[in-house]
């Protein structure tokens, strides 16, 4: 009897218990889960990883059904959930980096704005300083012009400010050597020119009396001598030139008066701003 029962019971146990051991898909899902636990998803998306684990548990329970399709389908869902958890973990990392970069963008913008504002303030201060200096220079120029106007003829013409001095007050008769009084006058002219900081030229007009050719040659020497003196007084050499007196060149009419007729005149023309380099303060 017992010999007959034993195989029957064994067969019943074998067919009755249809429990599966593992499937390849389930093994892969377990490996993937273990890997994910050590990866970024564990720290950045633990909730999503927990969901994946839940589905992995379901796949494990599917072994009880004895149907490998059930196990594999559930393992597949678990694998997809794991991949999603990992993708979300990477997304969190990227989002953190993005937020930091956006913050850095904002900071950099602010820094650039601050720098630009500082630069603007600095430029405004420099402009204000320059304006003040220009105003001061203009006042000084007016003062020196007023001083000059007391003893010499000063005219504002389209070609510039023309200072006219009688030749006899600057030079000894028939010569190109400066008289002491002439030096004094020219010193004040030099002060005026230095204040103006503009280009100037010296023209010497010959006397209307006497030999024309002698007077022309003397005028050129006198113009050069006046230039040398003004440079020695501090006028920038590149800003002043002596115009040679050419008999053919148009000559400014001599001012009326016997002192001009007998010894000619010296004109110092302060040209309008922008021709001599540097700043161009003062009147045209």
């Amino acid at each position, binding site marked *: 009897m017992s010999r007959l029962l034993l195989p029957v019971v064994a067969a019943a146990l074998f067919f009755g218990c249809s429990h599966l051991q593992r499937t390849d898909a389930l093994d892969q899902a377990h490996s993937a889960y273990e890997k994910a636990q050590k990866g970024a998803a564990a720290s950045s998306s633990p909730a999503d990883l927990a969901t994946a684990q839940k589905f992995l548990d379901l796949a494990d329970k599917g072994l009880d059904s004895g149907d490998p399709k059930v196990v594999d389908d559930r393992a597949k869902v678990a694998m997809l959930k794991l991949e999603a958890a990992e993708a979300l973990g990477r997304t969190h990392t990227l989002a953190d980096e993005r937020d930091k*970069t956006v913050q850095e963008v904002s900071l950099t913008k602010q820094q650039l704005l601050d720098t630009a504002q500082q630069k603007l303030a600095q430029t405004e201060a420099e402009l204000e300083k320059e304006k003040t200096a220009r105003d001061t220079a203009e006042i000084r120029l007016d003062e020196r012009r007023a001083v000059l106007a007391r003893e010499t003829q000063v005219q504002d013409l389209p070609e510039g400010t023309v200072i006219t001095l009688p030749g006899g007050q600057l030079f000894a008769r028939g010569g190109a050597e400066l008289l002491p009084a002439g030096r004094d006058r020219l010193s004040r002219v030099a002060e005026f020119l230095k204040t103006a900081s503009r280009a100037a030229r010296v023209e010497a007009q010959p006397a209307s009396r006497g030999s024309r050719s002698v007077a022309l040659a003397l005028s050129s020497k006198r113009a050069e001598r006046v230039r040398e003196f003004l440079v020695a007084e501090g006028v920038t050499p590149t800003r002043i030139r002596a115009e040679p007196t050419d008999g053919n060149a148009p000559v400014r009419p001599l001012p009326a008066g016997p002192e001009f007729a007998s010894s000619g005149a010296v004109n110092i023309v302060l040209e309008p701003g922008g021709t001599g380099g540097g700043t161009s303060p003062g009147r045209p």
Partner: protein
Amino acid sequence: MRRWTAAALVAFGSACASAPPLPAERLSQAESEVRAAQEIGAERAPQAKLYLQAARDTLAAAKETNKEDPEGAARKLDIARAQAELANALAREQMAKNELNTARAQLEALKNSGQAAGDAR
């Protein structure tokens, strides 16, 4: 004749009973997840697009096989939902990458403009 008619009705009824409808909630969740992935722009991210298409295919397969294998079809719904969720996650990852790249480019441009301004000074 009456017997035959009754037998035919029983046979028809039992045939219908063997193909129950797909589980409504699981179907609705899978379809909703597919829509969400579409709306977030999964079509524009290559990897996400692949999983979105796979989700659609699995959903269609679930509907087709429901008659022969209702339990398998129901499991396919779960797979389709998980595929759509992955498509959604990959699309979000791509968006975050794009946003990071845009922010980095903006930062680089700002730094270059600052450098250029500094050089000009």
